[in-house]
């Protein structure tokens, strides 16, 4: 609340469901992993973060839901505003912040429980107790992730028995079930076969009508296919950002040009 009041003029663009980053710096010990990041991510669209491996994409994503907290010896300075709230403020409640975002990681990690329990995990944590309500939620979000038809007869089997593509869609359903505003994906298709990847990409294109989506990807073609907005990072800095088309077709910075042409990777 207070963070909202403290918002200065420049933060005014920071609306519902958006992520605004001011002067963000992250250090792993002495290693300066993110350098002075300043950017506002557009709402209800897909932002892709591209850049060579080790440039800090995952680190940036982990700041958004504060998973960065669990790293030893980490220093974070600056501000990340989500819906106008400074999520690194001392009074910020970390579970509340995480509730606003769904996360897809590089490989799907189903929780060690049944398909049903995986989707119901978040809602249960956040206070839904009625069995009938939970059933509804599970069905709804499995449908939302286009998985329902494949699993409706075996909701009580362990989630680990699913194929890896199905597992990733389960992870999507599980993330959506906490009713976030934002979806984060860290190379969410990198472990998947082409058909499953396509599935996820299509899902993102549908979901962007209602969610703010941020995807890390190292596949330029993927960025081309799905991104509305593009951020190019290099060695911990944002080199260039803007509408995806512009960056891909007409990059201004030399490093971006080289990356887009495939000279640096």
């Amino acid at each position, binding site marked *: 609340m207070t963070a909202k009041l403290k918002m200065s003029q420049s933060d005014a663009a920071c609306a519902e469901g958006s992520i605004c980053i001011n002067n963000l710096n992250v250090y792993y010990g002495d290693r300066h992993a993110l350098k002075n990041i300043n950017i506002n991510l557009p709402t209800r669209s897909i932002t892709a973060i591209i850049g060579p491996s080790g440039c800090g994409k995952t680190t940036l994503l982990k700041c958004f*839901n504060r*998973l960065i907290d*669990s790293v*030893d*010896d980490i220093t974070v300075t600056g501000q990340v505003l989500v819906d106008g709230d400074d999520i690194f403020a001392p009074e910020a409640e970390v*579970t*509340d912040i*995480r*509730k606003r*975002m*769904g*996360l897809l*990681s*590089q*490989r799907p*990690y189903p*929780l*060690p*429980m049944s398909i049903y329990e995986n989707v119901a*995990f*978040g809602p249960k*944590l*956040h206070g839904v107790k009625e069995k009938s309500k939970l059933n509804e939620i599970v069905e709804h979000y499995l449908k939302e992730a286009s998985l329902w038809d494949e699993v409706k007869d075996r909701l009580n089997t*362990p989630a*680990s*028995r699913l194929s890896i593509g199905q597992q990733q869609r389960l*992870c999507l359903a*599980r*993330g959506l079930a*906490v009713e976030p505003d934002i979806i984060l994906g860290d190379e969410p298709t990198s472990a998947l076969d082409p058909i499953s990847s396509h599935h996820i990409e299509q899902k993102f294109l549908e979901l962007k009508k209602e969610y703010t989506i941020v995807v890390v990807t190292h596949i330029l073609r993927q960025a081309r296919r799905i991104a509305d907005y593009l951020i190019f990072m290099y060695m911990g800095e944002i080199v260039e950002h803007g509408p995806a088309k512009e960056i891909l077709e007409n990059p201004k910075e030399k490093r971006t040009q080289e990356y887009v042409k495939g000279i640096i990777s």
Partner: protein
Amino acid sequence: MSSQGRILKDKIAHKVMLAFVWLTIILLLVIALGLFIKAWPLFKTVSISDLLFSTTWVPYEGKFGMLSFIISTFWVTGVATVIAVPLCLLCAIYLSEYANKKVIAWVSPLIDILAGIPSVIFGIWGVIVIVPFVRDILAPMFGVSSTGYSILAGGIVLSIMVFPIVIYVLLEVFKTVPEDLRNAALSLGANKWIMIRKVLLRKAGPGIISAIVLGFSRALGETLAVLMVVGNVVDLPSNPLEAGYPLPAMIANNYGELLSIPMYDSALMLCALVLFVIVVFFNIIARIILRRIEKKIS
């Protein structure tokens, strides 16, 4: 190296390893068989039920009921496990999930040292610390008088002895749980403790059982330290504040003495055989449980 040479080497390595596996199995059988043959004369004069289910142990009258020893063994091991398992679990959870690297760098060498301390030192420590502790503090708390030399003292000493190995295995088990799985649970809004309970412990379930079994097996056979604090009284114990006489302690105390009494050495061999069977049985049951759990999870 030529590929033919490599294949040959592979084949030889395979054969050698297979031979060692067989050797271990044969060794187990040979031990069991040896004990059985030595115990055999006893079976001819005393019935098995009198041996296993009687508490009357009067060697010079030819009475070799070993129930007290068997029950004592289970008591001491049980007490040690009840104390050690929760402590080890909490300790390992703390070290793997909460402690920062500096604490771990301090603690893990200490655990290693603990693992290397000879059991006689644990025994002495038990005699000068744990026995008086049981006698003067724990027993009065329950309104009983005890010399302190008791199953409880044995269990406490044992629990400390199995501590390092159980913790060590638990830490390795927790390491196999991917960081991103923890993150998945956290990202759904679970706090750390819920993540640990619902995800980490469940994922690590089979490994945790293995760790406990390992500790248990060690506890079943540990001799010297227990012998020094457990009281060594031949009597059926009814609670942990009483003295007991577990099988390993009994064998160690009596072997080589009084062997002029007829059948006495056979009886001791039978005790050893019973202990051997308990350990093997316990491990087999644990394996079966482990299989079941693994099937359920994956």
